[in-house]
């Protein structure tokens, strides 16, 4: 007996989130006159929350980690992982969200620290998340995430929870990948030691094979997004990312869902259908998405301007297949994916060239009319590359907009302000 129960303070936020997502799942079920593609990913999060709660109460191992810390390994170990980032992404659904943002700002004596990071630290300080068996920290791509894990490690309740951080090199060459592959092996040793679960290499190989299939399907899907009109709206790429790199990473259920997505997109392309049948603007949104954007801004863009987000940072998939022939090849492949391919880490961790490469590739291949870099207040490194991005866009002949906003706090730049800024941009650039 662990003496833990669902009424513990640390469970309440997760329960609230689960119930909110559960309501969405119910709505999808009821309105499923045609195949509802949102059902599986949303239900996956409900199941995930339930499993984390169950493990917390039973004392079975679960960890805290991230999409960029080789989730293929967690799948192969049957090890559920919870991320600190979720509260910011689901925040728009939660009643006390603004209060929590303000309280987190007070905690750090300032609001200029990344909102996702502040909230993550806050929920630990306030005991609003079930403590895991171990933490696999992310110590890149930004300063904020590095420091927030240090604050968590200092928290009284969490100070005895073992923490691992893989040391990220700044480069992505062979030397760096080899170095990071060793870090991945060190991570496995850490997980085995602190969860008591052994990694079976055959199981990992099968997981990677499944994950490779998912990546292939994702790329197929992205090929379909090149079509005019784009078959799905801007938020859909995030769901594809979520399935392939989070809750169903390397699992057949995720692969099947991706097949459905490709099938659906194919049909829409054949019928020349999409959320904006007569597309006027195809834009590239080069940063993270939040519910506030996907529920508020993106539908407005489609309806008001005939503008579709044809590609965004998390939906983009510059992945390579992982060679599963040897253990060494598997770890090197995992390292490359975790260090150099997963979204946000790929662009923000190292030199600014990756921002520029991605802009060039996406603008050319997805028939992009303009690039919007939101200038999220937490992404200091990206904002430090804004001038170079602008120059790249100029070179490619597409307009570039830098906004300056908080993706997770709609008071920093309200939806109306965003609409106004984007409208003026479209108008002045002769778009739409």
């Amino acid at each position, binding site marked *: 007996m662990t003496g833990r129960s669902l009424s513990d303070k640390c469970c309440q936020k997760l329960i609230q989130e689960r119930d909110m997502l559960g309501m969405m799942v119910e709505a999808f079920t009821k309105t499923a006159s045609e195949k509802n593609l949102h059902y599986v990913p949303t239900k996956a999060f409900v199941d995930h929350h339930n499993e984390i709660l169950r493990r917390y109460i039973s004392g079975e191992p679960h960890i805290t980690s991230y999409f960029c810390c080789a989730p293929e390994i967690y799948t192969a170990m049957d090890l559920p992982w919870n991320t600190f980032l979720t509260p910011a992404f689901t925040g728009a659904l939660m009643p006390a969200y603004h209060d929590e943002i303000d309280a987190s700002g007070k905690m750090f004596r300032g609001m200029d620290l990344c909102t996702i990071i502040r909230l993550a630290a806050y929920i630990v300080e306030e005991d609003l998340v079930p403590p895991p068996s171990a933490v696999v920290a992310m*110590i890149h791509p930004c300063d904020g995430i590095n420091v927030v894990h240090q604050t968590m490690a200092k928290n009284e309740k969490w100070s005895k929870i073992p923490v691992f951080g893989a040391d990220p090199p700044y480069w992505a060459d062979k030397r760096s990948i080899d170095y990071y592959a060793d870090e991945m092996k060190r991570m496995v040793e850490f997980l085995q030691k602190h969860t008591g679960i052994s990694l079976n290499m055959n199981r990992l190989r099968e997981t990677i094979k499944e994950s490779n299939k998912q990546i292939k399907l994702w790329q197929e899907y992205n090929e379909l997004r090149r079509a005019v009109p784009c078959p799905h709206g801007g938020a859909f790429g995030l769901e594809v990312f979520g399935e392939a790199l989070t809750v169903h990473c390397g699992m057949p259920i995720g692969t099947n869902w991706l097949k459905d997505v490709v099938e659906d997109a194919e049909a829409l392309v054949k019928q020349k259908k999409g959320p904006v049948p007569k597309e006027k603007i195809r834009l590239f949104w080069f940063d993270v998405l939040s519910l506030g954007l996907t529920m508020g801004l993106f539908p407005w863009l489609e309806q008001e301007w005939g503008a579709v987000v044809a590609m965004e940072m998390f939906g983009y998939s510059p992945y390579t297949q992982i060679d599963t022939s040897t253990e060494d090849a598997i770890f090197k492949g995992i390292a490359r994916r975790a260090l150099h391919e997963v979204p946000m880490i790929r662009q923000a961790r190292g030199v600014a060239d990756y921002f520029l490469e991605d802009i060039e590739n996406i603008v050319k291949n997805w028939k992009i009319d303009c690039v919007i870099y939101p200038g999220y207040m937490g992404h200091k490194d990206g904002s*430090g590359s804004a001038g170079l991005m602008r120059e790249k866009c100029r070179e490619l002949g597409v307009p570039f907009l830098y906004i300056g906003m908080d993706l997770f706090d709609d008071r920093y730049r309200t939806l109306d302000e965003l609409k106004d800024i984007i409208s003026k941009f479209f108008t002045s650039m002769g778009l739409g």
Partner: protein
Amino acid sequence: MKTMVKSKVLDAFNEAAQTIVNPQLKKWMDEGGKVVGYFCCYAPDEIITAAGMTPFRVRATGSKGTEMADAYLSSINCSFCRHAFNMGLIGEYDFLEGAVWLNNCDHIRRIYDNWKRKVNTPMAHMMSLPKLNGDKQVAWWREELEIFKKALEKQTGTTITDEKLHNAIKIHNETRRLLRELYALRKKANPPITGADTLAVVIASTAMPRAEFNKMLKELLEELKDAPGIKDYKYRLMLISSILDDPLYIKTIEEVGGLVVTDSQCFGTRSFWVDVNEKTKDPLDALAKYTIQEKPHCPRMFLGFPTRSKYVQNLIKEYKVDGIVALRMVFCDLWAGELFMLEQDLGKLNVPVLHMDREYLMAGTVGQVRTRAQAFLESLGGKK
């Protein structure tokens, strides 16, 4: 509050702190000497010295604005970076033969990306500094040092031998030892030098040929040895900060009665508290171990907070500190977290902390800093 000795050397150090190209550096360049810039105290300045060049820590002293840099960086990038890059863009750093960056923080690493494209510096070199401090990281950093050494050799057409590296380590260690000697004087009940002047000395150490600096600092130490101590202060303060290279900040605090006697900052103890091991056979091994495992770290190093906190606590005891002035550059995530943790530890020890967010340039904020420092010192009333 003033340093109680008239000293031409101290005047020269203050001049170096208030300018970019000081007379000693100008003389070096006039005689054909080359200069390589660096942006952080983790940079291996010994290798630059070994290459026969002068390492110069890049500042934005005297900057008047960020208009040019703002076209590339943004309003959420720290003001040091914006000013420093602007100085590069307007040609203030045209004298550099090369510059070296590390991935020390999100802001500074982006100066590299912009600088190498927009500023006409012959060599722009980036180094990948680990965030952990194990032996594997020492080995990685040693490789980075080797790569940097080769880049400098290619740039200068010279060979950096082990002998040259050993000699450079000795020269830089002497700087460290002399600076520690200077700081030891500040342990006295009546230190002979102000915090503002001490900061000027440390800045000068990063802005002129090291051997020349060492000679000058020895002279100053002689002058300070029997100098009268400062008596007109109310409290002994410690400064904790990321980059602070403007003595005016400290001067403003000292003018209202708080004598800064020590610090944990990168233009301060963190850059010279420990020596590089001169006995290690391979000089690059010695430098790698020094950077990753031996020198005092800043918050970019992962999970090193307990050691950093202990370091601060030891200095508090050693220098009989009454209160802490903790400065954070606006938009610095690393120091937001560090000060959040540090204030918890210092609170438990009942050490008062004045937490001030600041911009790189002090212009226009002297009054605010003075008022906050005054209020802080008043709040210390009951502590003495």
